[in-house]
Every structure is written in C-alpha cells, then in structure tokens.
C-alpha cells in the first residue's frame, strides 16, 4: 500500500532554507551568516530562574491559556512597551512559540478559500501556514526603494472581496524593514475599510535600533478590535529553544484559538513559561545589552557590504541585512552557492523568502564579530572575483 498524503500538504514546496541547510551541514569550517537566532545564550538570570523552578518540582501541565502569573506579566509588559491593554484572563494565550500562535489564529479565522495577504520577502512559514489552514496565500511585494515597508496603495490594490486577513511582520525577517506610526495609520485605514483582521507578528520589535521606538498597528484607532498581537521571547531574550510565544486578541478569538490549542498542544511547556516570567519582569537590561551589540554589528556589516560594492540598506530593526547582489550578475542562489563552495561563507538566498527576494541575500548579524569580520573579508574577495 502506498500512503497518500493530503493534496494541500503534498503541494507545499520544501523550504528553500532547508535545502540550503542540508548542503551547509555537509561542509566543514563554514562561517554561517544564515542563522536566524541570537548567538547569545539565554541570559543567566533567566536560566537560573528556570533551574530554580525545576528544583521546586514545577514540571506539570499548566492552564491551557498558560500560567495566570505569566499572562499577567505579559499584560504588564505589552502595556508598558506597546501601550496596549489586554485582559490577562481572557485575551492572552501562551503558545509554543509565535509560530504556533500564527497557526492557531489562521485556523480559528479562515474558512476554506478565504484569502490572506502578506508582504514579501518574508519569513518562510507564512504562506505554508495559510495554505495548511485551507486559506489562499497572496503575497504583496515590497520593494528596496521603499525600504521594504508596506505601502497602503499596494495593499489596497491587493484586497479582493475574499480577503479575510493581513499578516504583518515588522521589523521584518529577512529585510529588516520597519514601519512608522504614520505609515501604520494609512495601512490601518485600508484594514478598517475592508474589514480585515490583522495578524501582527511583532517578534523583532525589541530589536529596533538608533534609539527608535517600535510602533505597532494594534495601537492605531479602530485596530485593537481587529488585531491579533503576536509576540514571543525567542529573539529579544535569546530564548529560541524555550518555545514561548503569545497571542493577545479580543476574547472571542482567543477562545476559538484556545479550542484548537487545547486539543492539539494542551499547553506550552511549564519550564519555558516559568523562564518567560523572569524574562518579562526582569529582562530589560539583558535585552538592552544584546540590542546594543546587534546595533554595532549592524553598523559594521552594513558598511562592509557597501564598501565591497553591494548596495545594502541599514536596517532599523531585526538582526538581518538584505543586500542587493544583482550587480554581480549572479542570481541569489548562484551567489550563495558560489560563496559557500568557493569561500566557505553561508548566506541565505533571498528567494528562500519568496520570489521577490531575487537579487538579494540575507545575512544575519546574530553571529560573533570575529566571524562577521572574516566572513566580510571572504565575501569581498568573492565579489571582487565576479567583477
């Protein structure tokens, strides 16, 4: 008997990142700028708090929505940092990373055939998540000349009567794009007029540079009631492996998401939840220290890339730069492959983040300065050779 995979799963292409990862895995001495996670270990005070919780035997299930104490911490944190108020008992759900929360929101919202818009280049999981939730994923291309921010007129043009939701991620993986509150107001206006639900993935929000403050669409007039505010601890607190994320949204939607979450997952692991309480309540300084380090590396890598003749915007958020490499006459994939095989430096082809990423590569600066420096030297040699 041959097992038949469901059509909508079978038809999802393999992740471009995964293909690339498997090649890199076979090679030694590669400097990787392909890693989408902090190079810092979780700050010690957070790890120590989790160890203490384990010692006290805190190893059981939690409430489906997450530990009440953590939900209160989240409510305080989100109010303080983003100016948004959510009721901890009914409007916050703790998930296994933001990825799970995105999946829950999509499954709770979509009927088969509903369209979801997202801006591209973007994180690899958005389109597949929409497809798996039986929705129709439709990309809106963002452009380097706009700093990869989302334009309201592009959004307006993409909306159809079937459009149910808009997915947002600013600062953006892989481009580092950010949005101002003035830009958000225009986007919010389109969302209200077309009655769109917004899924705002705010995972990089603390990593906003140049002393700037992150602004969220959820704070725009008329948006709180139609926004799922999605956030987690992976990036800012260097807690990727703990798998703690959360969703804040109006109670009926959280209730619907909880139905799926309780049957599929039950609850996020308690160890991660205990660690998250410590992180949110006492982690500001650790986050500030890591942000400062990223900001300096960003300065370094942006200048190095521009100096070698690759046009590169200086991102105002995230830990990625997304230089244009088309001046070398190579495609993103050729550039990445030749750089990898010839010079042992791994960057991710822009096309892994959607077809509109062609002509770019993603370099992560969540890597030690020494490695970034060597990688830039090797890359400069490579770029010189292509000329």
């Amino acid at each position, binding site marked *: 008997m041959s097992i038949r995979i469901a059509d909508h799963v079978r038809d999802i292409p393999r992740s471009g990142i995964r293909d690339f990862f498997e090649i*890199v*895995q076979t090679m030694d001495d*590669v400097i990787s700028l*392909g890693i*989408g*996670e902090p190079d810092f270990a979780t700050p010690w005070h957070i790890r120590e708090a989790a160890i203490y919780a384990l010692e006290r035997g805190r190893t059981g299930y939690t409430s489906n929505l997450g530990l009440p104490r953590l939900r209160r911490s989240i409510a305080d944190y989100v109010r303080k940092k983003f100016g948004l108020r959510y009721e901890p008992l009914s409007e916050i759900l703790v998930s296994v990373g933001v990825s799970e929360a995105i999946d829950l929101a999509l499954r709770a919202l979509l009927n088969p055939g509903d369209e979801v818009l997202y801006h591209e280049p973007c*994180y*690899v999981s958005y389109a597949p998540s929409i497809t798996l939730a039986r929705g129709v994923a439709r990309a809106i291309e963002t452009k380097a000349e706009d700093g990869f921010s989302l334009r309201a007129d592009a959004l307006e043009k993409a909306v159809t009567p079937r459009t149910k939701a808009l997915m947002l991620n600013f600062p953006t*993986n892989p481009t580092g794009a950010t949005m101002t509150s003035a830009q958000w107001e225009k986007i919010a206006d389109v969302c209200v007029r077309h009655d769109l639900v917004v899924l705002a993935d705010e995972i990089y929000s603390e990593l906003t540079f140049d002393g700037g403050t992150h602004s969220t669409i959820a704070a725009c007039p008329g948006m709180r009631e139609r926004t799922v505010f999605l956030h987690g601890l992976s990036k800012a607190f260097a807690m990727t492996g703990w798998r703690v994320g959360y969703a804040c949204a109006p109670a009926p939607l959280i209730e619907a998401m909880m139905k799926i979450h309780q049957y599929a997952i039950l609850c996020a692991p308690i160890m991660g939840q205990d660690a998250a309480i410590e992180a949110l309540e006492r982690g500001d300084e650790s986050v500030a220290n890591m942000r400062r380090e990223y900001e300096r590396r960003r300065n370094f890598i942006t200048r190095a890339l521009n100096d070698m003749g690759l046009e590169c915007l200086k991102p105002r958020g995230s830990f990625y730069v997304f230089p244009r490499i088309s001046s070398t006459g190579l495609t993103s994939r050729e550039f990445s492959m030749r750089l990898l095989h010839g010079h042992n430096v791994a960057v991710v082809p822009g096309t892994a983040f959607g077809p509109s990423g062609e002509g770019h590569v993603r370099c992560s600066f969540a890597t030690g300065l020494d490695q970034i420096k060597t990688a830039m030297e090797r890359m400069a040699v490579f770029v010189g050779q292509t000329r």
Partner: protein
Amino acid sequence: MDFGEGFEAGFFAVFLAGFFFVAGMEKAYADFLRLPSGDWVFMMGVLMDAIIDLLQQNALMPRADMARLLDMELEEVESAIAKLEAEGIVLGYQAIINREKWDTEKVTAIIEVKITPERGGGFDRIASRIAKFEEVQSCYLVSGGYDLLVIVEAANLRNAAAFVAEKLSTIEAVQATATHFRLKTYKENGTFHQFDSAPERLSVSP
C-alpha cells in the same frame, strides 16, 4: 636584545589571556563632558560611553573595527581615545592572565585592613601610603566591617606573608588585618577563566 624563551612564552600567555583596561571615570568624566553644552554633549557622552565599552571588552580591538561598529570615522575614534587617555579617563590597559597556566607560584592575597583615620587626612594619606607598595595591585576604601580592601600579588606565599607581617601590620594606623589567599579564579574583570564549550547551533535556520 635577547629576551629568551621565557619572554616568548610569557608573551604568548599574555596574548591568550585577553586584555582589559582600568578606567577612573567618575570626576574626570564629568569634567570632560561639562566643556560644551546641549545635544552635542549628550551625543559625545553616548559615543564616549560606547568607546569605553568597546575598550573594556577588548582594548586591542583594531580602531578601524571600532569605527565600523560605531558608525564613526577612524580618525574620530582615534582622537576620542587619545582624548580619553589625555584626560586621564582611560588610565591604562592590562592583560588578564590565567594563573593556572602561567607562573603558578604567584599568590594573590585579598587583605581586609582596619585603620585609624587621621585627624585632617582621613583615610587618604594612609591609604596612599599602603597603595605605594609595589606588591599592592589594588587598594579600595570600602564600607562595612573594615576600611581598606587591599589586593596584593607576590611571587610566593612567603613573600606575601612577609609583606603583611613586616610592611602592612607595622604601619602605626593599621589596627588589624585579615588575609585571604586566592585559591582559584573563576571570573576576573568580566572574563571567565574556564570556558564552557560553545553550545551547538544550527548552521542555517529560518
């Protein structure tokens, strides 16, 4: 000049150990910033803080790298550091040595010293008198059960004991001392002496 093998090995140890520097920032820094006014002062303060931070992380970092990290010109970084040095804000740069790998005979004594303050001079005169001994690496006036915390490095245990018995205790104003010998160093000036192996990372992730 022939420094011989010892020098080379010593240099190697120094090289391995990494560097830190000593800054006496409080007053000089305030004076330094009081010169101009307005936003410029604030910006200068931010930049100086950043340069000091980088120097403390690794004083040997190439100045060109510092310039790239802080988005400054090389000349700006060089002149800022020259200024920090000239103003006596950056007082020096030193190596952090792993004593378990080099010159293991050397001992470090951490000495609590209780002294009688002098009329007029307070603690300062007596503290500076103690600090002048070559064996004394650091000398702090502290609050609590004793007055001075003195850190002494000596070639061996006998020399350290002799310093305490013959030099320190015999100073008239010194009422009492309590000497603790360093047994093992775990962390020094922000640097760990034993390194955990780096945890494994995926080489590419989304």
